[in-house]
């Protein structure tokens, strides 16, 4: 009986600790993909970033092994021209989801070291201003 109680208690405490851990994971990323383009051209990474905390968090840096330069980008319309601009940070307000999608916000992988192939796994490190880093494992998709 003691043994059973002990196991139960251990189980409960484990669940509790797992829960605490989840609540600390304030950033979640869903539906991420990298666009397949021919050759060693730059390409974009897209995703939905959710901030489930009660504080605004900003994405401040992105890095990847596959590209020489990795930047956070947005598009602005200047005098009827679509201009891509690097932004120093991307704020994800408390409790909200920001969608990075083609023709809009995206992570730009500039000067690819090697041409990408469909299905290739890619790692992108995302640094946030709350001193956390998110290791994003995503893959190259030919979405045409």
């Amino acid at each position, binding site marked *: 009986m003691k043994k059973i109680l002990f196991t139960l208690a251990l189980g409960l405490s484990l669940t509790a600790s797992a829960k605490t851990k989840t609540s600390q994971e304030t950033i979640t990323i869903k539906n991420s993909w990298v*666009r397949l383009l021919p050759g060693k051209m*730059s*390409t*974009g990474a897209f995703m939905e970033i959710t901030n489930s905390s009660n504080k605004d968090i900003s994405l401040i840096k992105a890095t990847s092994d596959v590209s020489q330069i990795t930047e956070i*980008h947005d598009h602005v*319309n200047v005098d009827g021209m*679509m201009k891509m601009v690097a932004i120093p940070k991307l704020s994800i307000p408390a409790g909200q989801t920001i969608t990075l999608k083609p*023709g809009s916000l995206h992570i*730009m992988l500039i000067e690819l070291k090697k041409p990408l192939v469909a299905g290739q796994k890619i790692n992108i490190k995302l640094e946030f201003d709350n001193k956390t880093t998110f290791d994003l494992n995503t893959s190259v998709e030919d979405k*045409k």
Partner: protein
Amino acid sequence: MDCVDYSHTLTSSLFIGSFAILLLLIYLLSGLTQSLFLKRSLYFVIYTLIVLYAGLLTNKGNLVLNSMIKSIDSLNQDKRLYSTKILDLDTPYAFIYFGYTFCPDVCPTTLGLLAGLYKKKTSELKDIPTYLITLDPNRDSDERLKNYTSFFFKELRYKRYNSNDLKQLTTEFDVRYKVNTEKANYYTVDHSAFVYLVSKNGEIIKRFSHPINTDEVILTINTMQKESQK
């Protein structure tokens, strides 16, 4: 960049608005008269108008309404022309897009949308190729353009012009662009991102804003083909 075409909504709101005013006037008129017969006749008129209007909103009626609105819209649109000598199309119609192969996001997004459209609407888009006209002829060699266009879809062709021809075409199509050469190894070109539907005889039929609405593209093609069959 003009983004939204309000004329459609405007015309239908004008239609609904004028109809409502008409009903209100008849109702007020019925208040002025003492004669019960006249009052009843006016109510009958209101009733008939409502039934007629409801009829217009149903499927068939809606088509009538839409074609009315469309004919007004097409009158509003002024036709632009371009020099056929430069573009030199070998098909009656084509889509034109000004971009460049190093374009990191805007061009692949548009070309990707078009690729999906060609895949889905093969019969409608048969014999209507798309041309990518490079705004970056210095970096975009023929080989590069060939590789790039073949990646997206088989109906995608390319054109690489000398600076004079490119200047003339971009002026005629009102395409604005700026090559940002501050960074030597990697530079971008800011550019207008419209897709144009053009005819072989030099007409710019329609300009689609970025990001293109593929339903609108197909609707335009279908309407155009129906009109040409008449």
